[in-house]
Protein backbone atom coordinates (compact mmCIF):
# COMPACT_ATOMS: atom_id res chain seq x y z
CA UNK A 1 0.00 0.00 0.00
CA UNK A 2 1.54 3.28 -1.11
CA UNK A 3 -0.86 5.97 0.07
CA UNK A 4 -3.63 6.05 2.61
CA UNK A 5 -5.98 8.76 3.87
CA UNK A 6 -7.58 7.90 7.22
CA UNK A 7 -10.59 10.04 8.09
CA UNK A 8 -8.89 13.17 6.89
CA UNK A 9 -10.58 16.54 7.34
CA UNK A 10 -9.08 19.91 6.59
CA UNK A 11 -10.45 23.32 7.45
CA UNK A 12 -8.88 26.66 6.68
CA UNK A 13 -9.11 29.63 9.01
CA UNK A 14 -10.97 32.45 7.29
CA UNK A 15 -10.17 36.15 7.56
CA UNK A 16 -13.09 36.84 9.85
CA UNK A 17 -12.10 34.15 12.33
CA UNK A 18 -14.60 31.65 10.95
CA UNK A 19 -13.32 28.47 9.38
CA UNK A 20 -13.99 26.83 6.07
CA UNK A 21 -14.21 23.07 5.83
CA UNK A 22 -12.52 22.11 2.56
CA UNK A 23 -12.18 18.33 2.99
CA UNK A 24 -14.56 16.30 5.13
CA UNK A 25 -13.70 12.86 6.51
CA UNK A 26 -12.00 11.45 3.44
CA UNK A 27 -10.61 7.91 3.54
CA UNK A 28 -9.05 6.02 0.66
CA UNK A 29 -6.08 3.85 -0.22
CA UNK A 30 -3.89 3.69 -3.27
CA UNK A 31 -1.94 0.51 -3.90
CA UNK A 32 1.60 0.43 -5.18
CA UNK A 33 1.85 1.05 -8.92
CA UNK A 34 -1.80 2.03 -9.12
CA UNK A 35 -3.01 5.05 -11.07
CA UNK A 36 -5.89 6.76 -9.31
CA UNK A 37 -7.73 9.87 -10.47
CA UNK A 38 -9.70 12.29 -8.34
CA UNK A 39 -12.54 14.20 -9.98
CA UNK A 40 -14.97 16.64 -8.46
CA UNK A 41 -16.46 20.10 -8.81
CA UNK A 42 -14.26 23.16 -8.63
CA UNK A 43 -13.33 24.17 -5.11
CA UNK A 44 -14.21 20.79 -3.57
CA UNK A 45 -10.77 20.30 -2.07
CA UNK A 46 -8.89 18.30 -4.71
CA UNK A 47 -5.76 20.43 -4.60
CA UNK A 48 -5.94 20.43 -0.83
CA UNK A 49 -5.81 16.62 -0.84
CA UNK A 50 -2.74 16.80 -3.02
CA UNK A 51 -1.04 19.38 -0.79
CA UNK A 52 -1.66 17.21 2.25
CA UNK A 53 -0.11 14.23 0.50
CA UNK A 54 2.94 16.32 -0.37
CA UNK A 55 3.14 17.40 3.27
CA UNK A 56 2.64 21.08 2.48
CA UNK A 57 -0.47 21.26 4.68
CA UNK A 58 -1.28 19.21 7.74
CA UNK A 59 -4.75 17.68 8.02
CA UNK A 60 -6.94 19.21 10.71
CA UNK A 61 -8.16 15.76 11.62
CA UNK A 62 -7.16 12.25 10.64
CA UNK A 63 -3.88 11.18 9.11
CA UNK A 64 -2.17 10.76 5.79
CA UNK A 65 0.22 7.86 5.32
CA UNK A 66 2.72 7.42 2.54
CA UNK A 67 4.47 4.04 2.41
CA UNK A 68 3.09 3.26 5.88
CA UNK A 69 4.69 6.40 7.26
CA UNK A 70 2.70 9.28 8.61
CA UNK A 71 3.23 12.48 6.61
CA UNK A 72 4.31 15.30 8.88
CA UNK A 73 5.97 17.59 6.37
CA UNK A 74 7.55 17.71 2.93
CA UNK A 75 9.23 14.36 2.33
CA UNK A 76 11.25 12.47 -0.19
CA UNK A 77 8.48 9.99 -1.04
CA UNK A 78 6.39 12.25 -3.24
CA UNK A 79 6.92 14.38 -6.29
CA UNK A 80 4.26 16.75 -7.54
CA UNK A 81 3.35 18.58 -10.70
CA UNK A 82 0.83 21.32 -11.29
CA UNK A 83 -0.93 22.88 -14.23
CA UNK A 84 1.89 25.43 -14.26
CA UNK A 85 5.15 23.73 -15.18
CA UNK A 86 7.01 25.60 -12.40
CA UNK A 87 10.27 25.39 -14.30
CA UNK A 88 12.80 27.93 -13.08
CA UNK A 89 13.16 30.33 -16.02
CA UNK A 90 16.78 31.16 -15.20
CA UNK A 91 17.90 27.55 -15.37
CA UNK A 92 18.50 25.49 -18.46
CA UNK A 93 16.29 22.41 -18.88
CA UNK A 94 18.92 20.00 -17.58
CA UNK A 95 19.55 22.18 -14.53
CA UNK A 96 15.82 22.33 -13.95
CA UNK A 97 15.60 18.56 -14.00
CA UNK A 98 18.46 18.40 -11.51
CA UNK A 99 16.77 20.90 -9.18
CA UNK A 100 15.11 18.31 -6.96
CA UNK A 101 18.30 16.28 -6.62
CA UNK A 102 20.46 19.13 -5.38
CA UNK A 103 19.05 19.21 -1.88
CA UNK A 104 19.38 15.45 -1.52
CA UNK A 105 23.13 15.18 -1.49
CA UNK A 106 23.38 13.43 -4.84
CA UNK A 107 26.88 14.04 -6.24
CA UNK A 108 27.12 16.23 -9.31
CA UNK A 109 28.10 13.56 -11.83
CA UNK A 110 25.33 11.25 -10.70
CA UNK A 111 22.85 14.12 -10.80
CA UNK A 112 23.70 14.83 -14.39
CA UNK A 113 23.47 11.16 -15.31
CA UNK A 114 20.04 10.75 -13.77
CA UNK A 115 18.78 13.98 -15.28
CA UNK A 116 19.96 12.94 -18.74
CA UNK A 117 18.20 9.60 -18.36
CA UNK A 118 14.87 11.22 -17.45
CA UNK A 119 15.33 13.76 -20.21
CA UNK A 120 15.51 10.86 -22.64
CA UNK A 121 12.51 9.11 -21.05
CA UNK A 122 10.48 12.26 -21.57
CA UNK A 123 11.63 12.63 -25.20
CA UNK A 124 13.52 15.87 -24.75
CA UNK A 125 16.92 14.81 -26.09
CA UNK A 126 18.81 17.72 -27.56
CA UNK A 127 17.00 20.32 -25.45
CA UNK A 128 19.10 20.01 -22.30
CA UNK A 129 20.77 23.38 -22.78
CA UNK A 130 17.67 25.26 -23.84
CA UNK A 131 15.90 27.60 -21.46
CA UNK A 132 12.21 27.15 -20.58
CA UNK A 133 11.06 30.09 -22.72
CA UNK A 134 12.48 28.33 -25.77
CA UNK A 135 10.18 25.31 -25.30
CA UNK A 136 6.52 24.80 -26.13
CA UNK A 137 3.94 24.33 -23.37
CA UNK A 138 3.82 20.57 -23.93
CA UNK A 139 7.61 20.26 -23.87
CA UNK A 140 7.75 22.28 -20.67
CA UNK A 141 5.30 19.90 -19.02
CA UNK A 142 7.44 16.98 -20.14
CA UNK A 143 10.48 18.68 -18.63
CA UNK A 144 8.50 19.10 -15.40
CA UNK A 145 7.69 15.38 -15.46
CA UNK A 146 11.37 14.59 -16.01
CA UNK A 147 12.21 16.72 -12.98
CA UNK A 148 9.59 14.87 -10.95
CA UNK A 149 10.83 11.46 -12.05
CA UNK A 150 14.48 12.39 -11.47
CA UNK A 151 14.03 12.37 -7.69
CA UNK A 152 12.63 8.86 -8.04
CA UNK A 153 9.58 9.43 -5.83
CA UNK A 154 7.39 6.57 -4.70
CA UNK A 155 4.29 8.56 -5.51
CA UNK A 156 3.65 11.08 -8.26
CA UNK A 157 1.00 13.72 -7.65
CA UNK A 158 -0.45 15.43 -10.70
CA UNK A 159 -2.74 18.43 -10.33
CA UNK A 160 -4.39 19.06 -13.70
CA UNK A 161 -1.08 18.89 -15.55
CA UNK A 162 -2.71 18.89 -18.98
CA UNK A 163 -5.44 21.46 -18.57
CA UNK A 164 -3.50 24.37 -20.06
CA UNK A 165 -2.75 22.52 -23.30
CA UNK A 166 -4.58 22.38 -26.60
CA UNK A 167 -6.55 19.23 -27.43
CA UNK A 168 -3.96 17.53 -29.64
CA UNK A 169 -0.97 18.26 -27.45
CA UNK A 170 -3.00 17.10 -24.49
CA UNK A 171 -3.74 13.74 -26.09
CA UNK A 172 -0.13 13.16 -27.06
CA UNK A 173 1.11 14.22 -23.68
CA UNK A 174 -1.39 12.03 -21.82
CA UNK A 175 -0.13 9.17 -23.91
CA UNK A 176 3.51 9.92 -23.26
CA UNK A 177 2.94 10.48 -19.50
CA UNK A 178 0.93 7.26 -19.21
CA UNK A 179 3.67 5.26 -20.95
CA UNK A 180 6.48 6.78 -18.93
CA UNK A 181 4.67 6.34 -15.62
CA UNK A 182 3.69 2.76 -16.35
CA UNK A 183 7.23 1.92 -17.37
CA UNK A 184 8.60 3.49 -14.19
CA UNK A 185 5.96 1.62 -12.18
CA UNK A 186 5.08 4.71 -10.19
CA UNK A 187 2.03 5.07 -7.98
CA UNK A 188 0.13 8.07 -9.27
CA UNK A 189 -2.62 10.35 -8.03
CA UNK A 190 -4.07 12.51 -10.80
CA UNK A 191 -6.40 15.39 -10.11
CA UNK A 192 -8.45 16.45 -13.07
CA UNK A 193 -11.52 18.28 -14.31
CA UNK A 194 -11.58 16.26 -17.46
CA UNK A 195 -13.81 13.19 -17.02
CA UNK A 196 -12.61 11.39 -20.12
CA UNK A 197 -9.01 12.01 -19.11
CA UNK A 198 -9.75 10.27 -15.83
CA UNK A 199 -11.23 7.28 -17.66
CA UNK A 200 -8.41 7.10 -20.19
CA UNK A 201 -5.56 7.18 -17.71
CA UNK A 202 -6.71 5.53 -14.49
CA UNK A 203 -7.13 2.17 -12.81
CA UNK A 204 -9.57 3.73 -10.41
CA UNK A 205 -11.46 7.01 -10.06
CA UNK A 206 -12.55 8.74 -6.86
CA UNK A 207 -15.47 11.14 -7.19
CA UNK A 208 -15.69 13.99 -4.69
CA UNK A 209 -18.79 15.92 -3.72
CA UNK A 210 -19.19 19.69 -3.63
CA UNK A 211 -17.29 21.38 -0.84
CA UNK A 212 -16.73 20.11 1.77
CA UNK A 213 -15.23 17.34 -0.32
CA UNK A 214 -16.38 13.84 0.55
CA UNK A 215 -15.89 10.73 -1.53
CA UNK A 216 -19.27 9.94 -3.08
CA UNK A 217 -18.22 7.22 -5.49
CA UNK A 218 -15.33 5.01 -6.38
CA UNK A 219 -15.17 3.59 -9.88
CA UNK A 220 -12.78 0.90 -11.01
CA UNK A 221 -11.91 1.28 -14.66
CA UNK A 222 -11.76 -2.25 -15.95
CA UNK A 223 -10.15 -1.59 -19.30
CA UNK A 224 -6.82 -2.53 -20.91
CA UNK A 225 -4.15 -0.16 -22.26
CA UNK A 226 -3.68 1.98 -19.21
CA UNK A 227 -0.31 2.89 -20.64
CA UNK A 228 -1.78 3.94 -23.99
CA UNK A 229 -4.71 6.35 -23.56
CA UNK A 230 -4.79 6.84 -27.33
CA UNK A 231 -5.69 3.15 -27.73
CA UNK A 232 -8.08 3.11 -24.81
CA UNK A 233 -9.84 6.07 -26.29
CA UNK A 234 -11.14 3.94 -29.14
CA UNK A 235 -12.96 1.53 -26.83
CA UNK A 236 -16.75 1.96 -26.64
CA UNK A 237 -16.80 1.35 -22.86
CA UNK A 238 -15.01 4.65 -22.28
CA UNK A 239 -18.23 6.51 -22.98
CA UNK A 240 -20.12 4.42 -20.43
CA UNK A 241 -17.60 5.18 -17.70
CA UNK A 242 -17.69 8.87 -18.50
CA UNK A 243 -21.49 8.81 -18.38
CA UNK A 244 -21.31 7.14 -14.98
CA UNK A 245 -19.05 9.93 -13.69
CA UNK A 246 -21.33 12.46 -15.25
CA UNK A 247 -24.24 11.07 -13.29
CA UNK A 248 -22.37 11.02 -10.00
CA UNK A 249 -21.43 14.65 -10.41
CA UNK A 250 -25.11 15.43 -11.13
CA UNK A 251 -24.07 17.59 -14.04
CA UNK A 252 -27.46 17.29 -15.74
CA UNK A 253 -29.34 18.56 -12.72
CA UNK A 254 -26.94 21.44 -12.39
CA UNK A 255 -27.36 22.41 -16.00
CA UNK A 256 -31.16 22.41 -15.65
Amino acid sequence: MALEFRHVSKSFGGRDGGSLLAVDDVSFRVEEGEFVSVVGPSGCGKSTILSMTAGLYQPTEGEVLVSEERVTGPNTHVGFMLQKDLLLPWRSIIHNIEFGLESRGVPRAQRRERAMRELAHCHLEGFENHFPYQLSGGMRQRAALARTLAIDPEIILLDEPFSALDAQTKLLLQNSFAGTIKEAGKTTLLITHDLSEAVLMSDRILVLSERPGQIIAEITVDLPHRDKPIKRRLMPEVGDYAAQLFKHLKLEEKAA
Partner: protein
Amino acid sequence: MLRTHATKLTSAAILILVLVAWEVLPTALDVPRFIIPTLSDSMIELKRMWTNEGLLGHVTSTALLTLIGFLIGSLLGAVMGYLLGMSTFWEKVLSPYILALQIAPKVAFAPLFIMWFGYNSMPKLLVTVLIVFFPVLVNVLQAMRTVDRDLVNLARAYNLTRMGIFWKVEMPSTLPNLMAGLRIASTLAVIGVTVGELVGGNTGLGYLISYGGGQANAAMVFNAIILLTVIGFVLYAALERIEERVLHYLPKADH
Protein backbone atom coordinates in the same frame (compact mmCIF):
# COMPACT_ATOMS: atom_id res chain seq x y z
CA MET B 1 18.34 44.76 -38.14
CA LEU B 2 17.09 47.40 -40.54
CA ARG B 3 15.02 48.98 -37.81
CA THR B 4 17.89 49.36 -35.36
CA HIS B 5 19.90 50.91 -38.15
CA ALA B 6 17.07 53.35 -38.85
CA THR B 7 16.63 54.29 -35.19
CA LYS B 8 20.34 54.90 -34.77
CA LEU B 9 20.44 57.13 -37.83
CA THR B 10 17.40 59.11 -36.70
CA SER B 11 18.84 59.54 -33.19
CA ALA B 12 22.10 60.83 -34.63
CA ALA B 13 20.23 63.19 -36.94
CA ILE B 14 18.29 64.64 -34.00
CA LEU B 15 21.51 65.15 -32.04
CA ILE B 16 23.06 67.04 -34.95
CA LEU B 17 19.92 69.10 -35.36
CA VAL B 18 19.93 70.09 -31.69
CA LEU B 19 23.63 70.96 -31.76
CA VAL B 20 23.18 73.11 -34.86
CA ALA B 21 20.15 74.86 -33.32
CA TRP B 22 22.15 75.45 -30.17
CA GLU B 23 24.95 77.03 -32.17
CA VAL B 24 22.78 79.15 -34.45
CA LEU B 25 19.60 80.10 -32.62
CA PRO B 26 20.93 82.14 -29.65
CA THR B 27 22.81 84.49 -32.00
CA ALA B 28 19.94 84.60 -34.48
CA LEU B 29 17.45 85.48 -31.76
CA ASP B 30 19.82 87.98 -30.14
CA VAL B 31 19.97 86.16 -26.82
CA PRO B 32 23.03 87.42 -24.89
CA ARG B 33 25.69 84.78 -24.25
CA PHE B 34 25.50 85.12 -20.46
CA ILE B 35 21.91 83.88 -20.73
CA ILE B 36 22.32 81.16 -23.34
CA PRO B 37 25.86 80.57 -24.60
CA THR B 38 26.22 78.90 -27.99
CA LEU B 39 27.82 75.53 -28.54
CA SER B 40 31.15 77.08 -29.49
CA ASP B 41 31.05 79.42 -26.48
CA SER B 42 30.52 76.40 -24.25
CA MET B 43 33.37 74.51 -25.88
CA ILE B 44 35.75 77.41 -25.40
CA GLU B 45 34.65 77.65 -21.77
CA LEU B 46 35.14 73.89 -21.40
CA LYS B 47 38.74 74.23 -22.49
CA ARG B 48 39.25 77.11 -20.07
CA MET B 49 37.72 75.07 -17.26
CA TRP B 50 40.07 72.21 -18.08
CA THR B 51 43.18 74.39 -17.82
CA ASN B 52 42.18 76.98 -15.21
CA GLU B 53 39.60 75.36 -12.96
CA GLY B 54 41.00 71.83 -12.62
CA LEU B 55 37.98 70.31 -14.35
CA LEU B 56 39.39 66.79 -14.31
CA GLY B 57 39.56 66.77 -10.52
CA HIS B 58 35.94 67.93 -10.24
CA VAL B 59 34.69 65.34 -12.72
CA THR B 60 36.63 62.55 -11.02
CA SER B 61 35.34 63.53 -7.61
CA THR B 62 31.71 63.61 -8.77
CA ALA B 63 31.96 60.37 -10.75
CA LEU B 64 33.65 58.53 -7.91
CA LEU B 65 31.14 59.71 -5.31
CA THR B 66 28.28 58.81 -7.61
CA LEU B 67 29.63 55.31 -8.08
CA ILE B 68 30.46 54.71 -4.41
CA GLY B 69 27.18 56.19 -3.21
CA PHE B 70 25.30 54.09 -5.73
CA LEU B 71 27.10 50.90 -4.71
CA ILE B 72 26.68 51.40 -0.97
CA GLY B 73 23.09 52.64 -1.22
CA SER B 74 21.91 49.85 -3.47
CA LEU B 75 23.73 47.19 -1.50
CA LEU B 76 22.09 48.39 1.72
CA GLY B 77 18.73 48.73 -0.02
CA ALA B 78 18.90 45.23 -1.49
CA VAL B 79 20.05 43.59 1.75
CA MET B 80 17.34 45.38 3.71
CA GLY B 81 14.75 44.48 1.07
CA TYR B 82 15.63 40.80 1.22
CA LEU B 83 15.71 40.73 5.01
CA LEU B 84 12.31 42.40 5.27
CA GLY B 85 11.04 40.20 2.46
CA MET B 86 11.86 37.13 4.51
CA SER B 87 10.17 38.37 7.66
CA THR B 88 6.52 39.36 7.40
CA PHE B 89 6.64 40.48 11.01
CA TRP B 90 9.40 43.05 10.57
CA GLU B 91 8.03 44.15 7.25
CA LYS B 92 4.69 44.99 8.89
CA VAL B 93 6.40 46.68 11.83
CA LEU B 94 8.72 48.81 9.72
CA SER B 95 6.62 49.55 6.65
CA PRO B 96 5.06 52.83 7.94
CA TYR B 97 8.51 54.20 8.72
CA ILE B 98 9.86 53.09 5.40
CA LEU B 99 6.98 54.82 3.68
CA ALA B 100 7.56 58.02 5.69
CA LEU B 101 11.26 58.04 4.88
CA GLN B 102 10.51 57.30 1.28
CA ILE B 103 8.23 60.31 1.05
CA ALA B 104 10.58 62.67 2.91
CA PRO B 105 12.65 64.66 0.39
CA LYS B 106 16.07 63.14 0.88
CA VAL B 107 18.01 66.01 -0.70
CA ALA B 108 16.72 68.29 2.05
CA PHE B 109 18.93 66.38 4.47
CA ALA B 110 22.06 67.74 2.80
CA PRO B 111 22.45 70.89 4.97
CA LEU B 112 21.94 68.80 8.08
CA PHE B 113 24.66 66.36 7.06
CA ILE B 114 27.02 69.26 6.43
CA MET B 115 26.27 70.59 9.92
CA TRP B 116 27.11 67.20 11.33
CA PHE B 117 30.10 66.17 9.24
CA GLY B 118 31.52 69.39 7.84
CA TYR B 119 32.57 70.32 4.31
CA ASN B 120 33.93 67.01 3.10
CA SER B 121 32.77 64.02 1.07
CA MET B 122 30.73 62.52 3.86
CA PRO B 123 27.54 64.61 3.46
CA LYS B 124 27.52 64.09 -0.30
CA LEU B 125 27.96 60.38 0.11
CA LEU B 126 25.23 60.18 2.74
CA VAL B 127 22.68 62.04 0.63
CA THR B 128 23.47 59.77 -2.29
CA VAL B 129 23.23 56.60 -0.24
CA LEU B 130 19.93 57.75 1.23
CA ILE B 131 18.41 58.65 -2.10
CA VAL B 132 19.58 55.42 -3.77
CA PHE B 133 18.52 53.19 -0.89
CA PHE B 134 14.73 53.43 -1.25
CA PRO B 135 13.97 52.56 -4.84
CA VAL B 136 16.15 49.46 -4.51
CA LEU B 137 14.58 48.50 -1.17
CA VAL B 138 11.04 49.02 -2.42
CA ASN B 139 11.60 47.11 -5.65
CA VAL B 140 13.18 44.15 -3.91
CA LEU B 141 10.53 44.05 -1.21
CA GLN B 142 7.74 44.21 -3.76
CA ALA B 143 9.32 41.35 -5.70
CA MET B 144 9.81 39.25 -2.56
CA ARG B 145 6.11 39.62 -1.77
CA THR B 146 5.08 38.38 -5.18
CA VAL B 147 7.38 35.36 -5.57
CA ASP B 148 5.25 32.51 -6.92
CA ARG B 149 3.92 30.58 -3.90
CA ASP B 150 3.78 27.39 -5.93
CA LEU B 151 7.47 27.65 -6.75
CA VAL B 152 8.25 28.04 -3.08
CA ASN B 153 6.05 25.04 -2.30
CA LEU B 154 7.82 23.02 -4.95
CA ALA B 155 11.13 23.88 -3.34
CA ARG B 156 9.72 22.93 0.06
CA ALA B 157 8.52 19.63 -1.34
CA TYR B 158 12.07 19.06 -2.56
CA ASN B 159 13.27 19.54 1.02
CA LEU B 160 15.15 22.76 0.43
CA THR B 161 16.09 24.65 3.58
CA ARG B 162 14.90 28.22 4.17
CA MET B 163 18.23 29.52 2.90
CA GLY B 164 18.13 27.11 -0.03
CA ILE B 165 14.72 28.46 -0.99
CA PHE B 166 16.05 31.99 -0.76
CA TRP B 167 19.14 31.44 -2.89
CA LYS B 168 17.63 29.08 -5.44
CA VAL B 169 14.10 30.43 -5.84
CA GLU B 170 13.38 33.78 -4.22
CA MET B 171 16.60 35.61 -5.03
CA PRO B 172 16.64 34.69 -8.75
CA SER B 173 12.89 35.40 -9.01
CA THR B 174 13.44 38.93 -7.80
CA LEU B 175 16.38 39.71 -10.11
CA PRO B 176 14.31 41.52 -12.76
CA ASN B 177 12.87 43.85 -10.12
CA LEU B 178 16.25 44.33 -8.48
CA MET B 179 17.73 45.35 -11.83
CA ALA B 180 14.84 47.76 -12.46
CA GLY B 181 15.42 49.28 -9.01
CA LEU B 182 19.13 49.66 -9.72
CA ARG B 183 18.41 51.48 -12.96
CA ILE B 184 16.18 53.99 -11.20
CA ALA B 185 18.78 54.30 -8.45
CA SER B 186 21.58 55.03 -10.89
CA THR B 187 19.80 58.15 -12.17
CA LEU B 188 19.07 59.28 -8.63
CA ALA B 189 22.68 58.79 -7.52
CA VAL B 190 23.80 61.66 -9.77
CA ILE B 191 21.13 63.90 -8.24
CA GLY B 192 22.26 63.01 -4.73
CA VAL B 193 25.88 63.88 -5.35
CA THR B 194 25.00 67.07 -7.22
CA VAL B 195 22.82 68.34 -4.40
CA GLY B 196 25.54 67.55 -1.86
CA GLU B 197 28.05 69.49 -3.93
CA LEU B 198 25.67 72.39 -4.55
CA VAL B 199 25.07 72.87 -0.87
CA GLY B 200 28.60 72.80 0.40
CA GLY B 201 32.27 72.35 -0.31
CA ASN B 202 34.47 73.37 -3.19
CA THR B 203 34.80 70.27 -5.30
CA GLY B 204 32.68 68.53 -7.88
CA LEU B 205 30.49 69.48 -10.79
CA GLY B 206 27.71 70.59 -8.45
CA TYR B 207 30.11 73.08 -6.93
CA LEU B 208 31.03 74.33 -10.41
CA ILE B 209 27.34 74.90 -11.08
CA SER B 210 26.88 77.11 -8.04
CA TYR B 211 30.23 78.81 -8.64
CA GLY B 212 29.45 79.45 -12.29
CA GLY B 213 25.98 80.66 -11.39
CA GLY B 214 27.45 83.15 -8.92
CA GLN B 215 29.72 84.51 -11.63
CA ALA B 216 26.94 84.73 -14.21
CA ASN B 217 28.97 82.24 -16.26
CA ALA B 218 26.16 80.34 -17.98
CA ALA B 219 28.60 78.40 -20.17
CA MET B 220 30.22 76.90 -17.08
CA VAL B 221 26.83 75.84 -15.75
CA PHE B 222 25.90 74.34 -19.09
CA ASN B 223 29.11 72.34 -19.23
CA ALA B 224 28.74 71.05 -15.69
CA ILE B 225 25.17 69.93 -16.37
CA ILE B 226 26.23 68.13 -19.53
CA LEU B 227 29.08 66.36 -17.75
CA LEU B 228 26.75 65.29 -14.91
CA THR B 229 24.40 63.87 -17.51
CA VAL B 230 27.26 61.97 -19.11
CA ILE B 231 28.24 60.44 -15.75
CA GLY B 232 24.66 59.30 -15.11
CA PHE B 233 24.38 58.02 -18.65
CA VAL B 234 27.54 55.92 -18.40
CA LEU B 235 26.36 54.35 -15.13
CA TYR B 236 22.94 53.62 -16.61
CA ALA B 237 24.39 52.12 -19.77
CA ALA B 238 26.72 49.90 -17.75
CA LEU B 239 23.75 48.64 -15.75
CA GLU B 240 21.83 47.94 -18.93
CA ARG B 241 24.73 45.83 -20.17
CA ILE B 242 24.86 43.90 -16.91
CA GLU B 243 21.11 43.42 -16.94
CA GLU B 244 21.20 42.01 -20.45
CA ARG B 245 23.76 39.46 -19.29
CA VAL B 246 22.06 38.56 -16.03
CA LEU B 247 18.53 38.33 -17.41
CA HIS B 248 19.48 36.56 -20.63
CA TYR B 249 16.84 33.91 -19.91
CA LEU B 250 13.94 36.29 -20.38
CA PRO B 251 12.37 36.08 -23.83
CA LYS B 252 13.09 39.23 -25.80
CA ALA B 253 10.03 41.15 -26.83
CA ASP B 254 9.86 41.54 -30.60
CA HIS B 255 8.64 45.03 -31.30
